[in-house]
């Protein structure tokens, strides 16, 4: 096991083997915002809020810190005008979908009062935490994505969900948008015939 010495926001950080930039940063108390990250699950790289700047051969590059592996000598900037602008736009794009919870508090943190985009509430930011938790941790696959592009949505797999979800409900706590609670209640209210 070889540690990787990195510079994150001017702090020297020794990252362990197999760590990502995000893990290394959190280890030393540097917070990088995320919506789709959970340390129990494989990196997903979907919300892109964890985008940071890295400097490589004098060139600045933007990467998703949840997936980028820690490297010896890596220089990372977790905040910059560019990074903040990206995070603001991502949050502004998410506010119409799920204006409360983590999206709201992060938006406030990044100085965003309201979104210029029209509200289209469904309380799901498609972070996939529920889908991946169910697949990777529970091995149940009771909830999945359907549709592509702007038609993408989270759907319960009828035959499996009706049996498993009412008793499990573990994904509820993961949901940053607040959609699952109401969905599961619906599922409970209409048991499979």
């Amino acid at each position, binding site marked *: 096991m070889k540690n990787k010495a990195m510079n994150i926001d001017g702090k020297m950080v020794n990252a362990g083997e197999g760590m990502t930039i995000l893990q290394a940063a959190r280890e030393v108390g540097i917070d990088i915002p995320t919506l789709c990250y959970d340390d129990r699950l494989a990196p997903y790289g979907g919300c*892109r809020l964890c985008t940071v700047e890295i400097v490589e051969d004098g060139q600045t590059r*933007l990467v998703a810190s949840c997936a*980028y592996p820690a490297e010896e000598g890596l220089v990372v900037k977790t905040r910059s005008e560019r990074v903040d*602008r990206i995070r603001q*736009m*991502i949050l502004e794009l998410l506010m119409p979908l799920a204006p409360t919870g983590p999206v709201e508090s992060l938006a406030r943190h990044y100085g965003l009062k309201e979104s210029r985009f029209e509200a289209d509430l469904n309380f799901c930011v*498609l972070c996939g935490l529920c889908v991946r938790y169910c697949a990777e941790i529970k091995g149940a696959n009771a909830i999945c994505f359907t549709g*592509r*592009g*702007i038609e993408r949505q989270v759907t319960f797999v009828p035959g499996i969900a009706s049996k498993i979800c009412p008793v499990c409900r573990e994904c509820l706590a993961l949901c940053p948008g607040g959609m699952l609670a109401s969905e599961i209640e619906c599922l409970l209210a209409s048991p499979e015939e």
Partner: protein
Amino acid sequence: MVPLKSPAELENIRKAVIARRDPNKPCIAVCSGTGCRALAGQEVALAFVQGIKLHGLETKVDLKRTGCHGFCEKGPLVVIYPEGITYVQVQPSDVPEILRETIIGKQVVHGLLYTDPVTGETVVHESEIPFYRNQLRLVFGNNSEIDPKSIEDYIALGGYSALVKALFEMTPKQVVEEVKKANLRGRGGGGFPAGRKWEECRNATDEVKYVIVNADEGDPGAYMDRSLLEGNPHSVLEGLIIGAYAIGSHLGYVYVRQEYPLAVENVAVAIKQAVEYGFLGQNILGSGFAFNVEVHRGAGAFVSGESTALMAAIEGRVGEPSPKYIHTAIRGIFNKPSNLNNVETWANIPLIITKGAGWYISIGTERSKGTKIFSLVGKVNNTGLVEVPMGITLREIIYNIGGGIPGGKKFKAVQTGGPSGGCIPEQLIDTPVDFDELTEVGSMMGSGGMVVMDEDTCMVDTARYFVSFLCYESCGKCVPCREGLRQMLNILNNICLGKGRDGDIELLEEISATMKEASLCALGRTAPNPVLSTIRYFRDEYEAHIKDKCCPAKVCRELISYCILPDKCQACMICVRNCPADAIIGGEGLIPVIDQQKCTKCGTCLEVCPPRFDAVIKLSAEPAPRLVAS
């Protein structure tokens, strides 16, 4: 067939195949590419089969169903060898005449020849038709001489001799070096140097490696890879086997979309034949090198052409991209080193090996070598597949090969690179075809889609079309791409509906910036290009839509109206009778008037108004002309 065990055995077969063939025996090549099939090419071929039987010509003439010849505009195409007489727009009813006059009587049927619209003269040979004359068909040229289901046809033209050269005269490292020296850049869109990718994969420390053909072509209007795989599958396979040898891979995949049934069929036949002949298998041509190929049929998602998504699909997972901070050349399919190249890239390999990198780099520009196949479509006279040397200008392609814009209309823009590309305006039409030059002007080479647009094209509507395509073809995994596209489509829809607001252009640019910088894969990072390039070159059109509620090209329905000119109208009633919305009020001897509330702006009145009257016009944000009292 016993698998060939040495290069000498291949040469013997080649000699035997060539010896069996009488070079003076007439051969009728009927294009059976997808374009000609749609134009009854198969019926033409069938008519030839019956006609040959009827005339008892079975032993005197050969019939060949070939892949796409390229000149789809004039299909179905028939070429008679050895003379190379080319007939265009052949119908089954023309077949008896061709057999009678050309095959038996050795006379040319003048009515079926191509007529040059400029000189008005007929052209007999394929090579003299301006569409072909101005091309350099190195990769695509053999299509018209090969029955894609016949490995013998490929062998007769020197097929698999590049493989022999690589296996028996070169080390794997030398093959990689040759491809690097040729500076072959990926034809699938990115333009990444293939040799460097091969080298990285070759150097990866793993016993198991994969090589893959990316045939997930999905750009609207593009069908280059399809036609190559349909028309000359062995050239792709030969390139793949050479690549596998260079990289040290023993299993390859052809990822081809299920919607390309003929490509799936022909590549499967080619693989089977290659196994029978010993070009695939345990001991290829006795060299000791082992390699096999499987076909993976893609379910048709555009995004699955992205390397990580494609590899996920081959593994049996959902075809969605994942972060690739470690190259797929190091960690690809099942975390094993995997080298993915596009169909056209692979098809270039046998050429480079046979003729050498020195020859290859003599073609093209400083940083873009060789040729590129484009599907030239849209508002251009000669629609079809064209192969041109890098460095040729867009103007040469559109005018010298494409024959210019139909109907005397003005050229407005050309869209290259598909949904990831951009629109190049008239002032830049002399831009050379070159990976870097096209990127420089805000578009990209892409996989080879080239859509020509004339003055009747609305650029805001064009941007909206591509954004709408991507909205449903993005995987939807990452926020910038999915939500960015969703909001861009909303804004563009509003602009086209006349509901655009001040600041919309700037907002589109802001969203684009985040998509370009923060999206997960290349689809999202390039998705704003159609919007950004149209804003860059046609900002005035956006402003006209937003500020004046005017669509200068008169395309956006909500911003146009139709009007009947009273001084031109002869009250013939044709428009009144044909209006599907009953929106034209008129009667015998009365000048009709369009009820704008009822009008659905379908344009039927304009279409049916006799040209000699020319009394219906389209207006956008301008007052209707009034009848001036005389």
